């Protein structure tokens, strides 16, 4: 097996993986979601993960971000084995995730959701003693972040998230991850519900995040998007990594053919 992917010619090969997984297994009763899956993410790269519906992509990143504890397998961060028991552990390690289910609290406002778990407190005694929140600041920043994403149609920043349209919700989740990630940002189909303009902004945001030196994992079914911005593409199939390809050496058709099993990759992973 070639852990660094097939056909890589990029300089990143020389650096050590930032986040790595080996032999992850996750079973649900009769269903096997992850079947000895491997994963490698290098510093500063955009890694796309593609695969059929139900291939196990979301399960993979849920394992990487502490949202599920795999039945077997090992995860390493900077080469050191880690055991994330909860998403908080992963966040503490600088890994921020947009889940496919978005993980928003429906009855809280947009601003509350953006800052959930890392609220800003007032300065002065009110903040330190009374632990009072700085709601003004949080609302202002939330508004800024959403405007950056071009979600201009949000009319009221104190609207409950449950009253937002599908795309608006996704925008809130993406804005949250981008604002707080410090090492890795994982995005599970971040543009699925987004419009053309908003999707474009998210792609720009991803590039921006990479420019800030973070690594990005992007799960997407949108081939043009994937081939446009990914540095490497991890192809997932039937619960495991089939192969990793370089978007410059392969065409979208190749990728689709690998993904759907129409063609076998030259070197099969695992």
């Amino acid at each position, binding site marked *: 097996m070639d852990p660094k992917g097939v056909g890589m010619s*990029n*300089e*990143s090969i020389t*650096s050590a993986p930032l986040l790595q997984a080996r032999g992850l297994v996750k079973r649900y009763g009769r269903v096997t979601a992850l079947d000895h899956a491997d994963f490698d993410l*290098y*510093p*500063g*790269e955009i890694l796309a993960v593609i695969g059929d519906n139900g291939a196990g992509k979301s399960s993979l990143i849920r394992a990487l971000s502490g*949202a599920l504890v795999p039945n077997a397998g090992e995860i390493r961060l900077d080469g050191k084995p880690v055991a994330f028991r*909860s*998403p*908080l552990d992963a*966040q503490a390690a600088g890994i921020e*995730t947009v*889940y496919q*289910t*978005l*993980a*928003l*609290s*429906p*009855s*809280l406002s947009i601003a*509350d*959701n953006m800052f*959930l*778990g*890392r*609220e800003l*407190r007032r300065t002065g005694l009110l903040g330190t003693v*009374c*632990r*009072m*929140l700085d*709601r003004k600041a949080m609302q202002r920043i939330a*508004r800024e972040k*959403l*405007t950056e994403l071009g*979600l*201009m*149609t*949000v*009319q*009221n*920043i104190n609207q409950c998230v449950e009253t937002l349209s599908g795309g608006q919700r996704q925008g809130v989740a993406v804005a*949250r991850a981008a604002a707080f990630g410090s090492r890795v940002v994982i995005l599970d189909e971040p543009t699925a519900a987004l419009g*053309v*303009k908003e999707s*474009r902004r998210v*792609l720009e945001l991803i*590039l921006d995040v*990479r*420019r800030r030196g973070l690594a990005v994992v992007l799960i997407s079914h949108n081939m*043009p998007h994937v*081939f*446009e*911005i990914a*540095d490497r593409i991890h192809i997932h199939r039937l619960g495991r990594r089939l192969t990793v390809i370089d*978007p*410059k050496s392969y065409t979208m058709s190749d990728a689709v053919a690998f993904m759907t099993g129409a063609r076998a990759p030259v070197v099969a992973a695992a």
Partner: protein
Amino acid sequence: MTDIGNSRPAAQAFELALDKGESRVAEFEVRTRAPLQKLQHFLHANPTAVPAIVLLLSVAAFGSVVGPRFLSMFNLSLIIQQVTIIGVIGAAQTLIVITAGIDLSVGAIMVLCSVIMGKLGVAMGLAAPLALLIGLAVGAGCGAMNGVLVTRFKLPPFIVTLGTWSIFFALNLWYSASETIRSQDVAKFASLLQALGTPVNIFGARFTYGSLFMLALVLAIWFVLNRTAFGRHLYAVGDDPDAARLAGIRTDRILFSVYVIAGVICALGAWALIGRIGSISPQAGQTANLDSITAVVVGGASLFGGRGSIVGTLIGALIVGVFRNGLALSDVDVLWQEFAVGWLIIIAVALDQWIRKVSA
């Protein structure tokens, strides 16, 4: 890794149109409106104002039926005294209900704590402040037990608190030997325990420290729920625990602390209870569970979690208190009072829903 975007496909062609796209930023509409619309929007933005309207309407209704006896300052402040205990216990219950839980042990914790305070302060001759503190600690301990069972063993709160209700109540009967401590003895040996029963006159109305204490507690909890991160996390956990966990909230820690806090509030309720009835009785608090849940639900909270406000609970308790007091003052037989309270609760909540719908 350097930027390697040179040899790759560009954005899809049609997206180029975006460059010309409008770049208007998010609009946050601020308009002026007619008074009725203003009221509508006020109610929409302040959902707790709705039960308050229902409360005012009930007071007005009883005032016109029963007359000045009901509307006297004295009687109105009496109602507040009468809902003190349920207000305090309801505050604890509100916190639990917001997290999508339910606490059937609040009454048992309260009476256990009052008995412990009383036994220590009166029969064992401990200094009253110490007895009080130990009582509060026991409340925290009971809450912690609930909390551990809910968070570590992942048991449904209904089962946990149903079980601990039996446990705490049995302990209470055993420790007290089912014996009441008389008001006179409490006054003699540990009058601090009765402190919350002290009356105060404010603008001609007679309150007790207990009712003022309850109002202060409600205010404090309002602040915590609405102005601190802990409060927001409570709502998030109740709303969708999975989402909250994924968002990086220590849901177990939040849940555990909320049960502990509820236990402490119940112990404070025990103090208020001693103030109100003077004596310390192991039989007290038997209706506290249902009454507190009723106050919470009449106040607009959802038993499914994530929704509810502490002010709503207070108003809910007051609504029920007004009904009971008003009916008692009118000349209705106790049996039909029960009947009428049933209807009034339904009507109050229906009215609440209706106002919400109209103002939506």
